[in-house]
C-alpha cells in the first residue's frame, strides 16, 4: 500500500531538523494550503466561519463526495469512470419512475418507492458490472467505455422520463436529501461520513484495498503475484456506479423529483477531488483522506466565491485551473523524487 512515507526517501541518520521539517511540510502540502485558504476566506467574509455556513459547505460537497470516494478506488486501480454524472440523473429517474408506475398500479407509495430505490441501486451496480466486463473481457480502455456511457445513460434517463421531472414521491423520501439529524447535521453529510469511513477502512485495512493498489501500480506484477486483476477492476467499476446511484438518490430526494439532467458535469468535480487529493491518473497511488481534502478544498473555494459574489462561470475557470495546478505540483514532486 502506498503510504505517505513511500513517496519520500527514507529518513537518513544525522539529518538536520530543518530538512526533516521541510519534508514534513512537503508531505502535508495540501493540508497547509487548505489551512491558508480557510484563514484568507474567513478574513474576506465574516460569515464564512459560522456553523451554518460550514454545514452548508458540507451539504454541498456531500453528494459529489460520495462519488469521489468511489472514484478514488477506480483511479487507484488505474481506471477512470466518466459516466458517473449521467448515473446520478438516471438513478433518480429510476426511483421516481418506478414509484409512479407501481403506485398507479395500486401499490402503496411507500412500498413503490422502496422498490424504486432497490431497482435503482441494483441497475447501477449492473451498469458497473457491464463497464467492468467490457474493460476486462475485451480490453477496451475504460476512458472510452465510460465516455460512451456518459452520453448513453444521459439519453436513457431522458427517454425514460420523457424529458420531464417525475415528482410523484412519498413525503418521507425528502429526508435523505433535505433532512437533518438533531435539526442541524444534514443527512447527506451522514451518508458522506459513512461512505468515507467504509472506503477508508477498505482501502487501508483489507486485502481488497491492497489488491487495488497493486492492480493500479503494475497490473502484470499483480497478476503474476496471483492477484485477480480483472476481478479488482470489475469491482471498482461497480463500486463507483453504486456510489453514484446513492448520490443520485440523495439529489432526487433533496429536490423531490427524478430529473434526467441532474448530476450533469459531476464527473469533473469527483475526478478533480481525487486528483487534487494526490492520486495519480496512471494508477497505484491515492488516498481516501486525500480525496476528502480535495473535496473540502473545492467546497471551500466554491463557497468563498459564492459568498464574495463571484460569477458562476468564473468558478468554472478557477476549478479548471485548480486541477491543472494540483497535477502540476504532483508532477514536479514526483520528478524531484526520481531525481
Amino acid at each position, binding site marked *: 500500500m502506498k503510504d505517505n512515507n513511500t513517496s519520500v526517501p527514507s529518513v537518513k541518520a544525522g539529518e538536520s531538523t530543518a530538512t526533516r521539517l521541510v519534508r514534513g511540510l512537503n508531505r502535508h502540502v495540501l493540508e497547509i494550503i487548505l489551512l491558508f485558504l480557510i484563514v484568507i476566506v474567513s478574513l474576506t467574509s465574516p460569515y464564512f466561519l459560522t456553523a451554518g455556513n460550514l454545514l452548508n459547505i458540507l451539504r454541498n460537497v456531500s453528494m459529489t463526495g460520495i462519488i469521489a470516494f468511489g472514484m478514488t478506488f477506480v483511479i487507484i486501480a488505474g481506471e477512470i469512470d466518466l459516466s458517473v454524472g449521467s448515473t446520478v440523473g438516471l438513478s433518480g429517474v429510476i426511483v421516481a419512475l418506478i414509484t409512479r408506475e407501481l403506485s398507479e398500479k395500486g401499490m402503496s407509495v411507500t412500498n413503490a418507492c422502496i422498490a424504486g430505490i432497490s431497482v435503482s441501486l441494483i441497475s447501477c451496480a449492473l451498469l458497473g458490472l457491464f463497464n467492468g466486463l467490457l474493460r476486462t473481457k475485451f480490453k477496451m480502455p475504460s476512458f472510452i467505455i465510460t465516455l460512451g456511457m456518459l452520453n448513453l445513460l444521459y439519453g436513457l434517463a431522458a427517454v425514460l422520463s420523457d424529458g420531464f421531472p417525475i415528482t410523484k414521491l412519498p413525503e418521507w423520501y425528502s429526508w435523505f436529501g433535505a433532512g437533518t439529524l438533531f435539526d442541524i447535521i444534514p443527512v447527506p453529510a451522514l451518508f458522506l461520513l459513512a461512505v468515507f469511513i467504509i472506503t477508508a477502512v477498505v482501502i487501508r485495512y483489507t486485502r481488497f484495498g491492497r489488491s487495488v493498489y497493486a492492480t493500479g501500480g503494475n497490473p502484470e506484477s499483480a497478476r503474476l503475484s496471483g*492477484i485477480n486483476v480483472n476481478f479488482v477492476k470489475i469491482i471498482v467499476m461497480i463500486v463507483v456506479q453504486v456510489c453514484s446511484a446513492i448520490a443520485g438518490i440523495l439529489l432526487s430526494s433533496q429536490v423531490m423529483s427524478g430529473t434526467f439532467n441532474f448530476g450533469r458535469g459531476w464527473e469533473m468535480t469527483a475526478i478533480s477531488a481525487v486528483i487534487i487529493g494526490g492520486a495519480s491518473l496512471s494508477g497505484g497511488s491515492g488516498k481516501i483522506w486525500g480525496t476528502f481534502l480535495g473535496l473540502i478544498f473545492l467546497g471551500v473555494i466554491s463557497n468563498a466565491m459564492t459568498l464574495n459574489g463571484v460569477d458562476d462561470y468564473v468558478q468554472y475557470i478557477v476549478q479548471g485551473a485548480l486541477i491543472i495546478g494540483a497535477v502540476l505540483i504532483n508532477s514536479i514532486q514526483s520528478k524531484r523524487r526520481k531525481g
Partner: protein
Amino acid sequence: MSILEVKGLTKIFPGTVALNDVSVSFESGRVHALVGKNGSGKSTMLKILSGSQKATSGSFYLDGEEMHFSSTADAFSKGIATVYQELSLVPGLSVTENIFLGRMPKKRGIIDYRRARKEARELLEELDIDIDADLPVSGLSMWQRQMVEIAKAMSFNPRVLQLDEPTSSLARHEVESLFKIVRSLREKDVIVIYVSHKLQELWEIADTCTVIRDGEFIGRVEMESTTRAGLVSMMFGDVQIQERPKDLMVSDEVVLSVRNLTRKGKFTDVSFDLHRGEVLGIAGMLGSGRTELLKSVFGADPFNSGKIFFAGREMHSPSLIRMKKLGMALTPEDRKHEGLILEDSVASNLCYASLRELSPNGFMKKGKEREFVDRQVEALQIKVASPRVSVGSLSGGNQQKVVVGNWLNTHPTVMFFDEPSRGIDVNAKQQIFRIMWDQSRKGVASIMVSTELEELFEVCQRILIMRDGRLIGEAYPEELTVNSLYAMCMGEGEPPRPVGSGGKVKTERQN
C-alpha cells in the same frame, strides 16, 4: 570496394567497461559475423556504429573518412544502416510508407504516392523480396517484416548494413529466404555486419567472424578455416565453475511432472519430472521457449496440449491462483515489469503473493504482515533502511531478493527462478544461489533458467537443454563443459541422453 575501420573503440558505463580498445576492420563484399555471449559488448559496438550511442574514446572510419554521429539518422545518411532485433515498423502503415517513413517523395509539397509505390516496388524487386508494397505491415508475418526492415535499410543505399540477430524469430525456411537476400547484398559490394548467437548458421552465411568477450577484442577469423570448438572457446574462454555445496539431496519423490506440453509457436512436446529438493536447470538461448514454458506450467500463460501433474494430481487448465495455492511459485525474468510494483514499499512488495494468507477474513493482519516482512528482510539480508521505502530505490540485487521473498512468504514446494541473476552484482548473485540451496535443503524443488550457462553448472544438479522450443536432452553438470553446453544450446552437438533417462541421482540415493 569500401572498408570500415574501427580503431581503439572504448565505451565506459558507470561501473563497467563495455568495450575496451577494440580495433578491427570490415571490408565490403563479405559478410562479417560478430559474436560474443550476453554482455560481451557486441551490442554496444553495434549501437556505437549505428549512432545510437557515443564512444567514450576511439574512432571509426568509413573509406578513410572519420565518422561522427549525433543520431541514428546521421548514421543512415553517412551510409551505415542498422536493422535491430526489435523491429521498428509502424504496423498501421503500408510497406511503401514504412520504407520511406519520414521521407516520402513529394511533388509540390504533397506526397507523391505513385512515385513512392513505384520506387518501393523496384526496391523489393531488386532485393528479390516477394511482398506486395501496398499491404499494411500489420498483415505481414514476422519474417516478412524482417524483409521489409532490410528493404527499408537498403533504400538508403548504405555502404554498411548491420543486422542484429535477424533470424532469432524466424523458422528454418524463412531463414533460407533471408540468407538469399544477405548473399545478394554481398554481390552488391555492401559491408554486412551480422550479429547472431546461432553458431551453426554462421558457416552458411558469414565469411569472417569477429569475437568479443568481456569488452575485449579476442580475434577475427575466416569462417572456412575455423572449427566450431575453436569459435566456442574464443567466445567463452576458460570458465571457472564454483563448487556446489555437497549436502544437497534429491529425493526420488516426483513433485512436478510435465508431459508432452505444447504451446504453439513457443514450445513443443515438452516432458520432464522434477524431484523433491532438486535444483533443476534449463539451459537455452534467448527465444528457446524456456520462459514461456515456465509461465505455462505456472498457469500464468495458456498452453495448447499436454498434461501437468502437480501436488499429486493432474491439473486440468491450471490457473496461476490455483497453482500458487498448491505451492508453486515463480520469480519472473523481468523483475521491474513483472515482479515488483516499483513505487510501492518494500514491505508491500514482500506481501503481494501472500495477501490471502495475511487476511484470512478479508482484513489485513498487521502484526502477521510485519512478521512476514521482517522474516524475509532478515533471512534474505535485504539491505534497506526501512521496509517502508519504495522498492524502486533499491539496487538490482536487493530488488531481486524482494521478488524472491515475496514468493518465499507463500511457503512454496516448487519454485521457478527465471533469470534470477540478471543485472545484479556478483555478491548478490551468490546470495540468491545460497537462498536456492537453502530452499533445496528444506525440500523445495527449484527450476532455474539462466542465459549465463555457467551459473547452471554452479547451482543445479541436473540440466535440461532446450533448443527451438524443444527439450533435446539432459545432462549432469559433471558430464559437460560449459563450452559444450553453450554449443548444444546453439545447435551444435547432442546432449548425453534424453530427458529423464539418467539414473545417477537416484542410484546415489540408493547406495
